[in-house]
């Protein structure tokens, strides 16, 4: 594997559309539940262990080469909120574009062909990692980090938080990101034999509810 390929894939500047999404942070700020650095850390920790773990499992499983269409269905099952399904597919479609340009592969072409409107982003992330020569554990790391990196950047913009403090939050979460990625990758190893039901299915009901509410807001900075 190339460690640099992982850095490239996980870089916030990777042009896959993520900059327009806050991962639920804007809704959390609007409701007043996040208003400072401590709130940011609590939010990110919660998202990491729920939506982040689930996404990491799907990404790792896709990176093993398991059928991405079955995983896309598994992702739908794990995403009850229609607004968040739409967001996941939109981000998946945008990542697909960047991925095919960056690491052309027949497996990416196959998934794009069967899901022209976009597969769930974590599934595309896993297939992309595979195309980049990365391991399932790498894919899980990228997904876990993505689940907290986006909200942290959004919080800096939404609350004018000190960017150094926001970055320090991510550094403090690094070990937990590693733990989540490890658990996700271990589950993914079992998918080939035991099926997709062994993948994590942790959910964050409040993120689902506020995600729906956010989608209906007429004035917002972030798409989700």
């Amino acid at each position, binding site marked *: 594997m190339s460690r640099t390929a992982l850095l490239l894939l996980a870089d916030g*500047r990777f*042009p*896959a*559309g*993520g*900059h*327009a*999404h*806050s991962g639920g942070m804007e809704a959390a700020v609007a409701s007043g539940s996040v208003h400072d650095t401590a709130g940011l850390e609590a939010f990110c920790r919660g998202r990491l262990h729920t939506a982040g773990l689930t996404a990491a499992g799907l990404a790792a499983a896709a990176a093993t080469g398991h059928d991405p269409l079955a995983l896309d269905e598994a992702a739908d099952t794990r995403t009850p909120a229609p607004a968040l399904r739409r967001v996941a597919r*939109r981000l998946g*479609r*945008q990542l*697909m*574009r*960047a991925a*095919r*340009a960056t690491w*052309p592969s027949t497996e990416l*072409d196959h998934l*794009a062909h069967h899901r022209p409107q976009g597969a769930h982003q974590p599934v595309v992330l896993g297939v992309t990692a595979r195309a980049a020569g990365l391991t399932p554990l790498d894919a899980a790391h990228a997904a876990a980090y993505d689940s907290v990196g986006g909200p942290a950047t*959004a919080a800096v*913009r*939404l609350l004018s938080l000190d960017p150094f403090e926001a970055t320090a939050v991510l550094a403090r979460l690094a070990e937990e990101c590693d733990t989540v990625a490890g658990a996700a990758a271990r589950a993914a190893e079992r998918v080939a034999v035991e099926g997709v039901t062994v993948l994590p299915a942790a959910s964050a009901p409040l993120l689902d509810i506020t995600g729906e509410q956010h989608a209906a807001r*007429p*004035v*917002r*900075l*972030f*798409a989700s």
Partner: protein
Amino acid sequence: MHLDHPVTLPHRHTHSADARRPDGSRRALRIGFGGPVGSGKTATVAALCRTLRDRLSLAVVTNDIYTQEDAAFLRREAVLPPERITAVETGACPHTAIRDDISANLEAVEQLEQDLGPLDLILIESGGDNLTATFSRGLVDTQVFVIDVASGDDIPRKGGPGITTADLLVVNKTDLAPYVGADLDTMRADTRRQRGDLPYAFTSLTTADGIRPVTDWVTERLAAWHAGVTG
């Protein structure tokens, strides 16, 4: 005549703006409209739609910063049927969405082409930004930068990538010059100095046919596009 690489890049059609459709015909010309907040980008796009909609198949993508105000304005003014206007959200960073990470805009453009069939022209309006905002060549074929007289007659002198490099510079709201103490001759001289041979247009959209210089330019670009001269 634009010549492609002898060997077509693999999967090229999947990411940026290939000039041809899969059947070999030229796809719609994509024109970007950038410029500071309030300079008249939406008014310019609306006026262009009204002038061109009877002879061309058009669509518009707007990039609003925190609302769908621009798209809503265009729909309310009924410059085009609502299905021909799409809004992209930019996450507090309008320049990122047109330059560094163009994926949401490309997606919007392709969705319009898919839903509406072959189009002649797609206008992509950026969110109001600063003087450094320019469009990626992966998103648009040619770009217009719109500034206005009322924001200060020193803006052409200040320059910046939008003013110096845009394919057309529009200096809008010339009718306001006497009220804001703007010297149009100075603005014209500074514009020429900054842009060399690149075209520019001074417009007042409150007068009948005030959009004419921009319409003429768009028509020329479209003819060049179909002749295969550009892109």
